[in-house]
Structure formats: C-alpha cells, structure tokens
C-alpha cells in the first residue's frame, strides 16, 4: 500500500515537473439509490475517460447508495451531493422544496430528466406453477404476493401505482375499481419489507410468496445472480413506466464550482455510449437505436406514466402514500370504517 502511494505521488510529481500541470482534479459526489451500484460504476468509468480525453482533467465520481428517501434526506440535511440520481421524482421534489435546486428541475433535461427507465414486472418461481400471467392473477385464491412497503420503499410505490393504473385503465375501469383491486391485492401480501432488496431476499432466499413485484432491472439481476433455472420473469399486459430521475443540485455545485462537470455528467447519461451501458445493466434505454439493439432483452409492453395518470409525483405521494392516504386506508391493517 505504502509503496503504491509513494509511487503514485512520484508519478504525480513527474507529471507536474513535465509541465503538464494544467490537469485539474475534480471530484463529484453522486448520491443515488440502492440498485444502481453496478450501473454507475461502469458509467463513471466511461465518463471519466471521456472527460479526460476532451478536457484533460481528471474526474473522480464518488458514489453514495441507500434507500431513495434516506438518500434524499441526507442531501437535505447537508450531504454535499453535486448530482442526485434517485428512484422517484418525489424525493428530488423534496430537495427542491428545501431550496437546494430549482423547482423546474425536471424540465432541465430531456425525458422528464430520466435518462433510463424501467418497469414493474412479476418474478415467479420456475415454470410459473400458479399460472400468473397478468395483474388479475395476483388476487386469485392461494396466491401470495411479495412487495415492500410503499411507505418506506420507492420501488414499492411504483408497484402500488402500477397495480392501481392497470385497474384504472381497464375497460370500465374507475377509481373505485382501482381501489377495490389494490385493496384485494394487499390482502395477498404476507410480509412488507422496508426496501426492494429486502423483498427480493424474502422471495428468493426465504421462499415466501408466489410472485414478487419488482423493478425489471432487479428481476433480471435476481435471475442472473441466482440462475435462470429458478425464476421466470412475467411481463404483465400493462404496467407503469418507472422513470428514475437525475438532477444537478444547484446549491451544492454553486458552492464547489462543479456545475459544468455535473451538467456534462448528466447529459452524458443520454449519449449512445451511456445508454448502451444502462441497457446492459437492465435499464431500458431512451435512445431508439440502443433500444433496438436490446429489443430481445426488453419485451415490448404497454405502459402508462405518472404524469398521464396522476399528474405528478407530488400529487401521487399526497394522495396515496401520505399519512391517512389511500394506502393507509386500504393497505394491510387498515381500518375498514375509516
């Protein structure tokens, strides 16, 4: 270790001595949510190489991972994130509410500031013994559904809204029918983990339940890590387009002067090179050309968005997941009289 450090310092010195001293070292902090660990490792490497080639400066991107809400709270409480790449817009809205970034942050980048998307799919046990093909199969007698708690997990909120939206968009669908469907669905949930990874564990390791509602990227990952012989992925007839958003934290880049790099970093996520990396990590790319290349990996599916069904995340959060909201009214342990 020590030897390496000395060598490194020597190398640095030679660099400076050679008159190549114009290379700056820039450090960015990207505060992200849990399942993006591997994704950003690859993305950061490519971006650093590209930036070095174009500008000659060394960019080091430090990462922080955790539950999306927890991460947003850390940034709100002073973690100096240059960029945030979280699971849902509500968490970045909360930062905007605290004046850390402009309220119109979602319009500053293309595609609702979500360079990659995902959907909610079903992970079932090999051979699909309970014949789960679509949402209505989840509320058949004897089927147990694993999903984390929407109160604590961003992924679970996508699950909840996917189920709600499906019921709402059916012929003759209505608010009341959506409510009844989601209410019935949560009667089939035996365990509410606090996060998406926890729910995956409960389904995979503990053998609980017949179907796991999961991010598509998590489902692929579980299948790859644990073997295709154990689980099948079922894509329902219709699901939600999950858009994990990214944003530059204005207040923090103004302080450390990293705005240019931070903005370039986020724009990089939309380039063909980055989109390819995202697709390899099972996130659906936005670029048509890249999507074409990975068409066999991502089956075509009818989707709806938060904007189409609920307006925006603020509204969805207030209506469904705030204390006393729809989830509290119809979720597990709800009081029927309220």
């Amino acid at each position, binding site marked *: 270790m020590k030897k390496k450090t000395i060598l490194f310092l020597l190398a640095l010195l030679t660099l400076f001595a050679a008159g190549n001293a114009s290379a700056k070292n820039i450090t960015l902090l990207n505060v992200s949510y849990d399942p993006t660990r591997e994704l950003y490792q690859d993305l950061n490497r490519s971006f650093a190489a590209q930036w070095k080639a174009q500008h000659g400066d060394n960019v080091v991107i430090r990462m922080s991972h955790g*539950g999306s*809400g*927890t991460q*947003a*709270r850390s940034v*709100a409480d002073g973690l100096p994130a240059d960029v945030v790449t979280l699971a849902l817009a509500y968490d970045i809205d*909360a930062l905007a509410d605290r004046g850390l970034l402009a309220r119109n942050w979602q319009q500053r980048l293309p595609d609702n500031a979500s360079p990659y998307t995902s959907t909610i799919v079903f992970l079932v046990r090999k051979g699909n013994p309970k014949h789960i093909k679509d949402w209505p199969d989840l509320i058949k007698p004897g089927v147990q559904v694993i999903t984390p*708690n929407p*109160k*604590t997990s961003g992924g679970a909120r996508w699950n909840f809204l996917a189920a709600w939206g499906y019921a709402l968009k059916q012929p003759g669908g209505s608010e009341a029918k959506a409510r009844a469907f989601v209410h019935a669905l949560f009667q089939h949930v*035996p*365990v*509410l*983990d*606090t996060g998406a990874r*926890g729910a995956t*564990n409960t389904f995979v*390791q*503990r*053998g*609980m339940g017949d179907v796991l509602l999961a991010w598509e990227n998590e489902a692929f990952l579980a299948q790859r890590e644990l073997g295709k012989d154990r689980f099948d992925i079922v894509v329902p007839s219709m699901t939600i387009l999950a858009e994990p958003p990214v944003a530059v934290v204005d207040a923090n880049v103004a302080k450390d002067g990293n705005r240019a790099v931070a903005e370039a970093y986020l724009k990089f996520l939309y380039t063909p090179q980055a989109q390819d990396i995202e697709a390899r990590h099972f996130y659906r790319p936005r670029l048509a050309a890249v999507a074409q290349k990975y068409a066999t990996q991502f089956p075509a599916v009818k989707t709806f968005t938060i904007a189409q069904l609920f307006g925006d995340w603020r509204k969805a*959060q207030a209506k469904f*997941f*705030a*204390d006393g909201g729809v989830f*509290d009214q119809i*979720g*597990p*342990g*709800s*009081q029927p009289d309220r």
Partner: protein
Amino acid sequence: MALSKRRRVLPGFGLSVGYTLAFLGLIVLLPLAALAWKASGIGVAGLLHLLAAPRTQAALKLSFGGALAASLINALFGLLVAWVLVRYRFPGRRLLDALVDLPFALPTAVAGIALTALYAPNGWLGHAFDAFGVRIAYTQLGVGIAMVFVGFPFVVRTLQPVLESMDRDVEEAAESLGARRSQTFTRVILPVLVPALLTGFALALARAVGEYGSVIFIAGNMPMRTEIAPLLIVQKLEQFDYAGAAALGVVMLGFSFVMLVALSLLQRWSRRWAEALP
C-alpha cells in the same frame, strides 16, 4: 456512593466532574434536546392525534409489550446461564462465556437476517415449527425472538460479577442452620442477586424497545400486527415528516423513562428488602 462526603484520596474532583458533565451534555443531553426541539413542531394537538391513531397504539404496544416479554425471558435464562458459567467448571466453559457477548458484537442487520433465515417457513427451525402449525418469522413471536437475542448479554453480564463475589460460606451456613434448598435460594441467594437482575432486566428492556435493525427483517412489518414503533418513525422520516418522527421518538423516550424510573425504584426497594432480611 456519596462521593462528595467522603474524604477524597485523589485530587481533581472538580475537573473530572466538569468533564463528566460536559461529556454527558454533549453526547446524551444535546441530542435529546434536539429531539425535543424537533418534536415541538408538531404541537400538542398533533401529538394527541398521533397517539390516538390505532396504528401508533398497536406499534407501541408491540414494541413495549414485546420488549417486556423478551426481557422477562432474558432475566430467567440469563440468571440460569450466569449461574452455570460462574458456579460450574466444565470443558468449553470459556468458549460459552465468550459466546454470550456475540449479540453485542454482531451488526443487528446480520443478526436479523440470520434469525430470519433460521425461523422462516423454509428455514431449519421454522420448517420444524411449521409442521406443528406454529409460525415464528413474520409474526409477533419473531419480533420477540429478535428482542431476546439482542438483550440476552445484558442480564448475564450484570449478574456474573455479583455471583462471583458471593461467598459460598453463606450458603453453607444456611444449610448447616437447617435451611431447605429452596429456602437457601429464595432467602439467601436471591436477595443478593435481585438488584443486579433488575439492572440487567432494565438494560435488556431498553435495548429491545429501541431495537430496529434485527427486528425489521423477521417482523414482516404488517401494520397493526407486526409493525414496531421504530419502523413507524422511519416511515415518518420517509415522508420528510421530521416533527412527527421526533414526536414519536419523544413518546417512546417518555415511556422508557417511566419504566426505567419504576425499575430503579424497585431496585432500591429490593436492596432494602435484602438488607432487612435476617
């Protein structure tokens, strides 16, 4: 005990007390004050509303009820284990003694995952119990087991030194004076042990009430049934409801404080009782 009245052999009383107070203030009182300050944002009406919610009540009942039950179990078995470790000599005793501390050392999340793996319906023990129709993981029973696990070392470790310093002569004297074995235990041994037992019980209780990391894995976290109070706090935080989270924290703190005061009163009374015994 009464430090100020005794003639002090070593100087530096003022200095050391100063440091003690500063340290306690910084590490304990300041965060608690911050908590109370944050909680004050919710107001009295908000607090009453929070307390009236059935979910809050269910969660508090589970956290405190579970912790109470777990600490009682720990008091009983902790006494047994401490007794065995101090009074008997057998191969592997030291290893066993070291094992007692493991729940301290293990990250609670790891403990939670291990317990869940063991007690889940497809786990080793869970499978066996399932055959009798008993579910442990994802029920209140599971919550209790995790609480027993994290609180266990406290009772053993507080009892051990007391047991070690107990003179066996006293027991022998009791026996030679014609005391039955049960009398020796209840009238000679137990009175000496009770204060330490209560301390251990209180520590285990405090630990179990606040336990989050290990419990959430095994609890199943179903509202009204297996949702512990600390999880409700996390849920409030998740909605950026700092005041609500802090208020719930203050409520838990209040309950714990009352319980600990009651225990220390009990302890004082038990000491007097022990001294009053012939």
